[in-house]
């Protein structure tokens, strides 16, 4: 699957979509779900929680492992994709549309430090070898 060019990426395999209103949407990448396998559960952060960049904030659990999801940037959690808890398989179907949570960034410049699609693709390719 191609890596969407309209998104930003963290080295820990989260994707970030900057929205028009200044908020961002966060999920885990196609590559991350491929590593984890069939998803069985997602633990989402509390709405209103303030996160620091790289802070553990969610858990993606598959039949093989329970992996931490790290906040790609600092900010406040303003929405979570609650229906995902009942249908975690959506992440396997389309990781780039099955978002986990939305944030209001507290330091928008952190977005510039994230990877673009090309850099993330390179990261994944290097990891595979």
């Amino acid at each position: 699957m191609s890596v969407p060019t309209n998104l930003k990426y963290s080295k820990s395999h989260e994707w970030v979509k900057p929205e028009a209103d200044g908020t961002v949407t966060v999920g885990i990448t196609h590559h991350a779900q491929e590593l984890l396998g069939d998803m069985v559960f997602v633990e989402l952060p509390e709405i209103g929680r303030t996160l620091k960049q790289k802070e553990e904030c969610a858990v993606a659990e598959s039949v093989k492992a329970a992996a931490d999801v790290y906040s790609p940037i600092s900010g406040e959690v303003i929405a979570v994709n609650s229906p995902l808890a009942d249908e975690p398989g959506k992440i396997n179907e389309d990781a780039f549309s099955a978002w986990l949570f939305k944030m209001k960034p507290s330091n928008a410049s952190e977005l510039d430090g994230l990877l673009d699609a090309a850099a993330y693709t390179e990261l994944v390719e290097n990891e595979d070898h």
Partner: protein
Amino acid sequence: MPFIPHTEEDIAEMLASIGAKTIEELFDEIPKELVSGELTGVPPGLSEMEISRLMMERATTDGFYQNFIGAGAYEHHIPAAVWQITTRGEFYSSYTPYQAEASQGTLQLLYEYQTMMASLTGMDVSNASMYDGATALAEAALMAVRSHKSSRRILIPKTVHPVYRQVVRAIVSNQKIEVVELPFNTQSGQIEPGSLSDFANEEFAALVIPQPNFFGVLEQVDALTDWAHSKNAFAIGVVNPTALALLTPPGEWGSKGADIAVGEGQPLGIPLSSGGPYFGFMACKNDLVRQMPGRIIGRTTDLDNKPGFVLTLQAREQHIRRSKATSNICTNQGLMVTAATIFMSLLGPEGLRRVAAQSHANTLELVEQLGKINGVKRAFSGPVFHEAALTLAAPVAEVLSKLKQKGILGGLDLQGYYPELGNALLVCATETKTTNDLQNYAEALKHAIG
């Protein structure tokens, strides 16, 4: 292949490579005061004949007492079939093997055990057991804090077993969890209801509710559970499994039921054995299952649609999730659970109810008889299950020593744990006691006090 893989030469070679002269030197960073030294009571290797003789001699020094001590470990009749079956080769494995699914029989037994415990506690799911009741409570506290997210405070009433409170502190205090003890009402022997108002504007993760409590007294579990829920906190029930045959199970306390139920499983077919091994049980509501530590066995079907048993939710266990596992200090007590499962199967719900009812009746009878003695009073007015606290007109230690001379272990001296109660004694009579036994005890106590 030898069972002891390291020869003297192997050990010498490894020590030389590390740069330590002896095994003791290898471990010399352990403070000296923590090292227990030689086990003087354990002789070097003996023949079977010698060891049988030694153990028989030692067994006689234990004596043959009539036991009226409960306080967390209860003497119940164990049908001979329980350990006869438990020690059959097919069952006599103490652990879920690492290649767990290869042992379908072990997994099925654990699955049956979980089903029985979930039914007994009125909860949705049970794990495959824990070390003992005290560590199960500590794990429940950790589980509540993980699930609550905003508070790291646990309320534990002083009516919870004092040793359980100690164990909880030992396990949770290094995890920045605050343990707050609630006082008890000196009239009723229950959690002091007035102490709850101190928390009207305070946040906490869970309230621990013992049923019956350490004094044998029944707590107002419905009101306490609802109060905890009204404060957005979890309710953790610490329950006696025998009592559950008669009392409302924690899953039905208050309007929503307790969230976690834990307890000591020893009364279910495990002999007293000087304090262990026993096993702890833990059950919870469905929405907390991912925070529940330990093994959980599930039932599924294979590719041919045949039923089979598997480890469930193990992605959160220590062998996969390492430092982030739900627990790194737990295991199940497979052999004890095997015995308990067979015990429950043999007795059935009706048998367990009869054991509970007879224990309750015997304790009421004992308390009534003892209450007639000059200088003996019930310490609390609250209703009891199979244990009760008494206050004596004489020092308890002296009384107990006199009773012991007459072959009676008269109960637990509460002085050390609750000095505020004065000369207080905790007594218990299970179904193992006859009317005659109760009369003998009353007679002996009368002489010991008078």
